């Protein structure tokens, strides 16, 4: 078992024939991901990497039964690509694209509610269920199959955490990079809920960072709803002040989004917080002993 994606997921890659799309789609195919279609408007009818290319996502859904989309479309057009996937009835949209304007994402989020589409990202490494499907840009070999669910705001820190979990003698059920943008799709709570209900996940690792208050909301949710052990790490304890959002942002959020605030909230929810990024593996060892 796993969450969201597995070997049965039928993946369509949007922005399939571009440089980024080609490079990563090939890696996903090598990993064994079931990529059934690619979409590049104007290139429909051709083949690329041995996969049929369509002009629209709708065609890929009708002809190939695609149900998960992986997006490599450039930032100016990415919000349109997400909405196209949602409109075509795709269940899970994984958007890798970095640099989508916030205004575009405000509209996307509102639109997705209408169709109940699950969005992962944008600006994220994607999802991987080891030995079944890699729908993203992470180095697949780092992730071994196992019982730890991993949710992370950061890309390379996800690899770091997975590597430590594997070196500690455990593995990953599913790992999801949710992205660090101000507006993202699925967040900690949505995924905590799914890992709690996943029989094969025994512990959950969540990796957050400064800014916003998703981690604080997650801490509240964990306290009330999660029975499985949770390990957390928050990056940015020494981050410079100038990098945070303006004061008006802090007014709205009702908090400043500092690492300390988040760590305190998580500790109060009985979450095992790793003191440094190097101790994620040790901490998971402690809770799974």
């Amino acid at each position, binding site marked *: 078992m796993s969450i969201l994606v597995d070997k049965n997921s039928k993946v369509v890659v949007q922005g399939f024939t571009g440089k980024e799309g080609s490079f990563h789609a090939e890696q996903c195919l090598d990993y064994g991901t079931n990529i059934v279609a690619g979409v590049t408007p104007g290139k429909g009818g051709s083949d690329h990497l041995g996969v049929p290319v369509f002009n629209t996502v709708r065609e890929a859904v009708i002809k190939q039964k695609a149900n998960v989309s992986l997006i490599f479309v450039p*930032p*100016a057009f990415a919000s349109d690509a997400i909405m196209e996937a949602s409109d075509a009835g795709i269940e899970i949209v994984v958007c890798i694209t*970095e*640099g*989508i*304007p*916030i*205004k*575009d*994402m*405000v*509209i996307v*989020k*509102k639109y997705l509610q209408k169709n109940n589409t699950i969005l992962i990202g944008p600006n994220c*490494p994607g999802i991987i269920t080891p030995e079944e499907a890699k729908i993203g*840009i*992470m*180095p697949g070999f*780092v992730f071994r199959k196992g019982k730890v669910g991993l949710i*992370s*705001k*950061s*890309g*390379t*820190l996800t*690899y*770091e955490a997975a*590597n430590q979990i594997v070196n500690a003698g455990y593995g990953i059920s599913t790992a999801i990079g949710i992205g*660090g943008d*101000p*507006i993202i799709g699925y967040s900690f709570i949505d995924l905590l809920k799914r890992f709690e209900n996943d029989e094969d996940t025994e512990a959950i690792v969540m*990796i957050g*960072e*400064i800014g*916003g*208050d998703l981690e604080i909301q997650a801490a509240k949710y964990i306290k009330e709803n999660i029975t499985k052990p949770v390990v957390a*790490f928050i*990056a*940015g*304890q*020494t*981050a*410079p002040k*100038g*990098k945070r959002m*303006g*004061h*008006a*942002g*802090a*007014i*709205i*959020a009702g908090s400043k989004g500092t*690492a300390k605030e988040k760590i305190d909230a998580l500790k109060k929810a009985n979450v095992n917080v790793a*003191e*440094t*990024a*190097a*101790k994620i593996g040790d901490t998971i060892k402690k809770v799974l002993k």
Partner: protein
Amino acid sequence: MNIHEYQAKKVLSKFGVATLLGKVATSSSEAREIAEEIGGEMWVVKAQVHAGGRGKAGGIKIAKTLDGVEELSKKILGMKLVTHQTGSEGKIVKKVYIEAAADIKKEYYLGIILDRQKEIPVMMASMEGGVEIEKVAAETPEKIIKIDIDPFIGLRDFQARMLAFKLGFKNKQIKYFVKFAKALYSAYLEMDGSLVEINPMVLLEDDSLIALDAKMGFDDNALFRHNDIVAMRDFEEEDPMEVEAGKYGLNYVKLEGNVGCMVNGAGLAMSTMDIIKYEGGEPANFLDVGGGANAETVAKGLEIILKDKNVKAIFINIFGGIVRCDRIAKGIIKATKNISIEIPIIVRLDGTNAKEAVDILNKSKISKLIPATDLQDGARKSVKFAKENY
């Protein structure tokens, strides 16, 4: 990206937000000419720096004669302005805005920002204008009125009227406010604002409303569709090293410590700084080489870190995903050929092509390179070498 008050007013007035007559000057004689051109009997000389709290710090002064304008401009231009937003190092004033003075009846606050929780823009207003709004929010949050804006229908008249009544406006003031608020939202929306703040928005003797001060920030991700805003960027307001790094796609922030860091990914970069501190050291910088790192950008990154003379050791921490470790290794070698490196460089490479990278570095026989097996080992060694090298 942020812009100056005078630039924000130019942008806002295009959308129908009323402002007073004014122009920017870089010398006191120019300031005098502008005041003459504006006319009237009173002018305000305003320091142009990217920070709030200028008035309190002595950066905003009223002049009652043209000589006064010239004198005050001379005084303010070149002064180091220290406000609650600049930090103790302050900011040197290089431009002043000369503006007509007005008869003020009352001051208000009006702003628009993204509510990250609700994921929509929110308009905030307060009768406590002209003061630090963060202070109002902390001490008397009930004095801030908020209106959620549905991105599909925008800010409606009835919403603006609701705010107007709560702010105590009457008769034709209401009509003026609705126009002002809607113009402000148009500017925020059209220009991909991350923040618009009018503090204060003032009610004049004739019941009209104007933006006495204006602050605008923009979503960096959307700058590709706003060349006019990009052209307003004032590099003198930014750290020159950060600007230099940005040209190569590097995200660099200088800090006070002595352990330089070069990392791929913002989360891992922050975690690397954190662990250096945890191990008893002090990070000298934040540096994210990003997903597109290659030999050239890595070499440039090292060069930038080495410009900081406080740095006594460098920790290169790479977990290769898209970034291939062998490319990073080649970059390190390239850098050592161009610049003489006299401090230890602790290198930890893991992930994609890590083995090849370690081979490349071993073959290079560069004496200052110290291999690290993992994040923990790298952090300990970096802190240790920085202390020994001090």
